[in-house]
């Protein structure tokens, strides 16, 4: 058996997105569009203090306010059988924080939910929420890593000594780290502080919960990237069997990690539906999203890099601190961020020895959660800044320095010291491609002349490898059991040859209804627009992880391959029987099955489908009716997309404004299911990366009050701040994945901070050191200019 020729395949073509009709005509349905008869609307009473004992909650005035159905406190929710959120994590030394979905006894961050008001409308619920009187007995706040680790700092959780979730030290490599540093010709070091960021999906979170008392079944419509994981967590918190909880969702208006968690609000609405016997709806507003959903990526990375006389990297030592916030998020915990940071920091380079210490710090701030990139951007920033510092110290071109250390195609597939698989691609070739496309040499040649005219122009780059789509081998050892490493698909071809695929992925704008249709179309000989992808419904789709960690193309897409091939096998068997040849003699082509040696002998998909269901003509003996199959795909431990970002910036040395003149991403994500969709993913990621480099930062005051919980003060880049972003591909199919693809959903964001930072330093005539704190605000840029003696 076989499949159609590659030129006839849909995978690899930029066909228009099949889901876009509803998006561009304004007819997509989001969680806000889900309404149930008799639904109550929830507004939360949220903590105004960062750290305090709750001495009194008086809801009597709120309960008698107009339209109020109920006001529920943490103690009342717990009494109804709702348990705190727990996040076991199989890593030595990790300490869990119990997170009551509504605070009990104590609050630990501003914005923590204290009580839920349910009313006939959100307006009335918010009016009544203002009437709930909360009395606090203040405790000292511990907002920053430094504050929480200071001697005598107040404990956020009494059982977590030193305000630490963990304290983990590990060594890797054939040689000993200290010995490697002792024999190094060059050692460079630095401390890098990366800002607290927000994922900022355009659609905020939201849930509608319904409980059917007679059957004990919960239905939760929710804006989530991980329906099965949320179901798992919810069932545990609600104390019910997992099969009694159904989690489903309509279209998602973006996720970026912000919806890759089981949130306290999801637990609360389910608990309220059970307590009240009526559906309840909660839509997060922007202020709640910025204040109290999740934040991420506030890290301090202290790193030392040792190299030999030729600049070959020998050893790396890192000490990584993460502001983990007040509670451990389900399912990732703060440790997932740390593990990504400690493992990805080795990049696409060779390294002989590595040691890290990694700690997640408990603070009185919004809990840490995944944000697109998940520490890889931060690790890349630290490492690629050190590469520049080393190059300066050696008086060597940093491109040449990278070239001496990048893994060569012949060395791959291989594993990094930390166990990440580098599965191929030409990393140096990608760097050269980015350098060429961005006009590197032309910019450098013209730099002095521009400077004489008062223009400060510079170039910068960052190379990395994005590991994604990690399978069970990598997931299970570090994660709780609710996270699978695999994904599932169920494929049904109906009696007219049209196909429905039920996928465990979650569509959140990333185009899976098109790219998965292309996969299924190739495996089943049909057109992509005859394939419908269904997702986001735990009662409907096979079990699987969902959409996070750059995995859908490989993992969920792989599951579509597996399931579709099972249906394809039936089509071939049936066709061979009808054509009177051996199964080995036929092959699939677009529209049907033919005899390989005599393509004129052909039977159409429509006819095969009709026969498979209706038995209109004789089926082979023992042929099982129908054309349905389920399949699962467990990806390799990990696969890695190589990439280099290269940028040209112009700096206004008086105001500190940074203008991006050119932005190039060179990328090898293996087989591109739909190149236009991949380009969109990368461009969108780069826009977020520009935000992280130049604009975005969640700010708190020392008392734990968030200072910029609105889009007026939390600065995300707009069209005006974003240059054209050129994406260029090399395509080296992954030898390890079923469809040759690699994950690249986060590649757009990973290199931005380092590349832009390196370019700003270059523009100001610096070499190596400088700009170790993100974001590069105008004030920090002006500070660097003054430090380097640059004045207009």
């Amino acid at each position, binding site marked *: 058996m076989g499949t159609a020729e590659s030129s006839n395949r849909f995978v690899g073509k930029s066909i228009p997105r099949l889901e876009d009709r509803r998006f561009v005509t304004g007819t997509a349905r989001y969680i806000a569009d889900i309404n149930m008869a008799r639904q109550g609307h929830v507004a939360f009473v949220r903590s105004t203090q960062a750290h305090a004992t709750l001495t009194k909650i008086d809801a009597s005035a709120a309960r008698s306010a107009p339209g109020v159905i109920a006001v529920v406190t943490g103690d009342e929710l717990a009494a109804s059988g709702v348990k705190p959120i727990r996040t076991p994590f199989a890593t030595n030394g990790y300490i869990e924080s119990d997170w009551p979905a509504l605070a009990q006894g104590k609050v630990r961050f501003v914005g923590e939910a204290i009580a839920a008001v349910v009313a006939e409308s*959100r*307006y009335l619920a*918010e*009016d009544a929420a*203002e009437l709930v009187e909360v009395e606090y007995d203040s405790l000292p706040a511990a907002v920053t890593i430094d504050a929480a680790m200071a001697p005598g700092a107040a404990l956020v959780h009494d059982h977590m000594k030193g305000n630490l979730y963990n304290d983990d030290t590990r060594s890797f490599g054939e040689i000993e780290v200290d010995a490697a540093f002792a024999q190094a010709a060059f050692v460079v070091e630095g401390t890098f502080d990366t800002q607290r960021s927000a994922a900022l999906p355009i659609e905020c979170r939201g849930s509608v919960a319904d409980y059917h008392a007679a059957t004990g079944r919960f239905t939760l419509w929710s804006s989530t990237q991980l329906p099965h994981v949320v179901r798992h967590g919810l069932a545990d918190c609600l104390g019910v069997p997992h099969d009694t909880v159904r989690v489903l969702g309509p279209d998602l208006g973006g996720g970026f990690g912000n919806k890759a968690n089981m949130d306290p609000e999801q637990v609360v609405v389910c608990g309220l539906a059970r307590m009240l016997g009526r559906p309840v709806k909660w839509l997060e*507003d*922007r*202020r709640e999203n910025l204040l109290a959903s999740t934040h991420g990526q506030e890290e301090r990375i202290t790193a030392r890099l040792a190299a030999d006389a030729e600049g070959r990297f020998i050893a790396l030592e890192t000490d990584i601190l993460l502001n983990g916030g007040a509670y451990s998020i389900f399912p990732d915990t703060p440790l997932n961020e740390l593990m990504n940071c400690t493992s990805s920091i080795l990049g696409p380079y060779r390294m002989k020895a590595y040691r890290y210490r990694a700690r997640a710090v408990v603070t009185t701030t919004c809990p840490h959660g995944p944000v697109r990139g998940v520490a890889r951007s931060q690790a890349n920033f630290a490492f690629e800044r050190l590469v520049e510092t080393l190059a300066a110290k050696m008086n060597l071109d940093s491109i040449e320095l990278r070239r001496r250390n990048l893994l060569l195609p012949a060395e791959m597939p291989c594993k990094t010291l930390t166990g990440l698989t580098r599965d191929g691609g030409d990393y140096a070739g990608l760097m050269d491609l980015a350098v060429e496309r961005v006009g590197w040499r032309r910019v450098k040649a013209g730099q002095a002349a521009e400077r004489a005219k*008062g223009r400060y122009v510079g170039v910068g780059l960052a190379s990395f490898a994005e590991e994604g789509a990690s399978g069970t081998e990598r997931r299970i050892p570090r994660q709780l059991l609710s996270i699978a490493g695999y994904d599932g698909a169920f494929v049904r071809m109906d009696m007219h040859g049209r196909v429905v695929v039920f996928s465990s992925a979650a569509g959140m704008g990333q185009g899976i209804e098109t790219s998965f249709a292309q996969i299924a179309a190739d495996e089943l000989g049909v057109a992509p627009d005859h394939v419908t992808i269904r997702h986001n419904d735990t009662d409907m789709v096979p079990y699987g992880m969902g959409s996070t960690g750059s995995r859908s193309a490989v993992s969920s897409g792989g599951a579509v391959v597996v399931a579709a091939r099972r249906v394809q096998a039936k089509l071939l068997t049936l066709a061979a029987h009808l054509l009177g040849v051996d199964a080995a003699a036929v092959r699939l082509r677009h529209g049907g099955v033919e005899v390989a040696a005599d393509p004129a002998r052909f039977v159409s998909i429509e006819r095969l489908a009709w026969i498979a269901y209706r038995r209109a003509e004789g089926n082979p003996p023992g042929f099982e009716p129908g054309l349905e199959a389920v399949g699962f795909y467990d990806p390799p431990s990990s696969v890695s997309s190589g990439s280099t970002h290269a940028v040209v910036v112009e700096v206004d040395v*008086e*105001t*500190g*404004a940074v203008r991006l003149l050119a932005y190039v991403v060179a990328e090898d994500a293996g087989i591109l299911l739909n190149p236009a969709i991949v380009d969109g993913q990368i461009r969108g990621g780069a826009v977020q990366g520009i935000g992280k480099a130049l*604009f975005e930062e969640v*700010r708190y005051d020392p008392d734990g009050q968030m*200072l*910029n919980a*609105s889009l*007026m*003060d939390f*600065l995300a*880049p*707009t069209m*005006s*701040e974003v240059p054209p972003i050129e994406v260029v591909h090399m395509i080296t199919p992954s030898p390890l994945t079923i469809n040759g693809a690699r994950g690249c959903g986060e590649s757009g964001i990973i290199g931005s901070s380092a590349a832009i930072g390196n370019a700003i330093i270059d523009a100001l005539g610096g070499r190596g050191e400088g700009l170790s704190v993100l974001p590069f*605000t*105008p*004030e920090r840029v*002006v500070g660097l200019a003054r430090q380097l003696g640059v004045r*207009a």
Partner: protein
Amino acid sequence: MKPPPFAYAAPGTRAEALALLARHGYDAKVLAGGQSLVPALNFRLARPPVLVDINGIPGLDAIAERDGELSFGALVRHTDAERSALVARRCPPLAKAIGHIGHRTIRNRGTIGGSIAHADPAAELPLVMVALGGRVNAASVRGERWIAASDFFTGYLATALEPDELLVEARFPVLASGATWGFQEYSRRSGDFALAAACVTLSRAGGKVTACSIGVAGGGPVPVRASAAERALIGTDGGSGACLAAASSAASGIEIDGDIHGSAAYRRSLVETVVRRALWTAAGLTS
């Protein structure tokens, strides 16, 4: 982010609106374009018991030239002023400044009167009005009165308007014959409120600066005229060095507070930069 309860009135005439304001006084808030008020309501930062929506009042949307001034009805939308040939011809710094107000959707809805009455210290129109010496007409059941820009902006988001008064008209002097001008603004992103902005005019005769105005916004509670810098510039040749000195004087002479977008020291340096760049533009110099 839902507003607290409020009563809503949509008067069809100016007289009805003024009567409502007279009746409700401090309890009333005027709704024009709503670009600042509605977010403040949704954040529950503003809790007016009564909203008086003036959008239905006829005759408040005219742009005209009167006696050496450009007159704007309170309901003139920013976009209409931005695209007005009269404004571009007679008061180009105003046209330029309006282009910096928020984004297109904000300018389509936001009004000249609303922006001035809201009196955000970093907003463009109050700055231009102070720099050029404009004035507003405040109407109430008690009558009308003209308030000069220098008296109008009294503090952070505060004006000389009495609670029963409605800003019905704003006037900006047309640019003096032969005068040159410069407008410079620096904000973190396109469309953000200014971290620092400057609006300047220069008149020269016989190689000497004979008159000038230097308006500065950003950092302080109200836009201000840098009077000492203006005085120092008059009589000079208005060249590069004179402009530098004036900018330095302007920056050192005004009140500046730091915030999450920049320290006071940084913002002071920005003021110096935008004033100097605006002066250089007005003087026909390039930076």
